[in-house]
């Protein structure tokens, strides 16, 4: 009887795992000893980090997408049929169409989603770039902007923790190029008492912001937005006026996680080294879906996925464990429209961002193209 691997979610983590596992279990797939099945919400695969570039006209919408079936190895059975209920006791997943999928090993890679609807006035009063529709609207707003008070508002939890710093620094250069920066004031708000969750990044950002006249308001957790008065108010009691509000909305996990009672907020309790669901020995959790206190980012999902591929392949082929996840994360950081830097860290080694350079910026632009090799499990 074939061992069934079921993957829920066709984002970066789910796709890397599906393709990587197909490559590592080639002979077992050919012999019918293993099957790999993916169920996802859409037939399109989006390169989400590309959304950062859309408002600035630096990436075309068509460059963000590929057909998921073409990204996936042909030996993977792929169904566009969103999961509605995950039963880890019965080892089954029920989908929107009413089908039931069973499994020997399950990978939950259902990701996270923005929730501007959880803060009064945010959906009506704010722009964002964390989904395509938001990035389109922000692009229009930036092109029409003639100067005024701009607020970059960061909320917890959110994915891609360096994106708020990137968009702030890119925005300044964009306004300079458009000739409106001398009529513009940029203020960056952050939930905790420094400019970034990572202390080295926060320490690096302070002089960068000061040098460019970017103001900041720390300990700012959004309570409400008043779209008519154009103000934003924090739980800490501070109200700021704005002409253009760009928010990084709070995130939650997928609805199917809460509906299946697998974790509050849609985050599944996960062992930070094995990436197994707490209480399960055959359910892997990857990417944004985990409750591990680590960056929710494509890079995290990528390195976690590599670990899960090795472990699933070893379990299927040799009935043994391969290796634990060491917390590795690598993030490029755009520091304007023409320069960038990067950070790399794991559970035991803190990050240390270097001086920005044009070379790292070009590496990031190169990776924006090479991502499709990562998704195919080749890079």
């Amino acid at each position: 009887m074939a061992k069934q691997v079921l993957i829920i979610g066709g984002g970066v983590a789910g796709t890397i795992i599906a393709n990587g596992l197909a490559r590592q279990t080639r002979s077992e797939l050919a012999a019918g000893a293993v099957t790999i099945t993916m169920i996802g919400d859409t037939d399109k695969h989006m390169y989400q980090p590309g959304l950062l570039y859309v408002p600035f006209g630096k990436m075309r919408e068509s460059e963000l997408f590929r057909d998921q079936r073409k990204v996936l190895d042909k030996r993977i059975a792929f169904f566009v049929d969103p999961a509605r209920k995950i039963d880890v006791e019965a080892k089954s997943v029920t989908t929107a169409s009413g089908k039931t999928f069973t499994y020997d090993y399950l990978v939950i890679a259902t990701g996270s989603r923005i929730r501007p609807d959880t803060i009064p006035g945010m959906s009506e009063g704010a722009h964002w770039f964390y989904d395509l529709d938001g990035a389109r609207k922000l692009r229009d707003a930036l092109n029409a902007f003639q100067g005024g008070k701009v607020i970059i508002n960061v909320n917890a939890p959110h994915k891609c923790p360096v994106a708020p710093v990137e968009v702030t620094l890119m925005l300044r250069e964009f306004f300079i190029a458009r000739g409106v920066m001398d009529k513009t004031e940029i203020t960056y708000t952050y939930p905790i008492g420094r400019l970034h969750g990572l202390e080295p990044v926060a320490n690096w950002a302070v002089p960068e912001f000061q040098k460019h006249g970017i103001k900041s308001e720390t300990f700012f957790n959004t309570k409400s937005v008043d779209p008519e008065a154009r103000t934003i108010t924090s739980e800490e009691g501070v109200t700021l006026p704005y002409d253009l509000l760009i928010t990084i909305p709070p995130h939650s996990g997928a609805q199917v996680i809460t509906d299946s009672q697998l974790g509050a907020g849609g985050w599944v309790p996960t062992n930070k080294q094995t990436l197994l669901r707490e209480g399960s020995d055959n359910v892997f959790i990857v990417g944004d879906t985990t409750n591990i206190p680590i960056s929710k980012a494509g890079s995290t999902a990528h390195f976690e996925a590599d670990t899960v591929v090795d472990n699933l392949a070893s379990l299927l082929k040799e009935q043994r464990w391969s290796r634990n996840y060491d917390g590795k994360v690598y993030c490029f950081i755009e520091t304007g429209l023409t320069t960038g830097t990067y950070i790399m860290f794991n559970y035991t080694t803190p990050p240390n961002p270097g001086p920005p350079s044009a070379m790292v910026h070009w590496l990031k632009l190169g990776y924006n193209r090479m991502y499709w090799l990562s998704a195919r499990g080749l890079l």
Partner: protein
Amino acid sequence: MSEKVIVDARGAFCPGPLMELIATLKNVAVGDEVDVWSTDKGSVTDIPEWCKKVKHECVGVVEQQGYWSVLVRKAK
């Protein structure tokens, strides 16, 4: 009946213990407690400071073996 949730943020560089606390408080009920475990000594001051600002109750800070336990009760 109130519950207690443990946030094991030991060794967490990003997003860090306070960000984990803020995120966790959104998913618990008023009166529930969140026990943040942190190896960052800064948590001993920044978590109580933030709680004071937003009027959640910082119940106590206890130094354990190699980490700090900061207990917060959701007040609103």
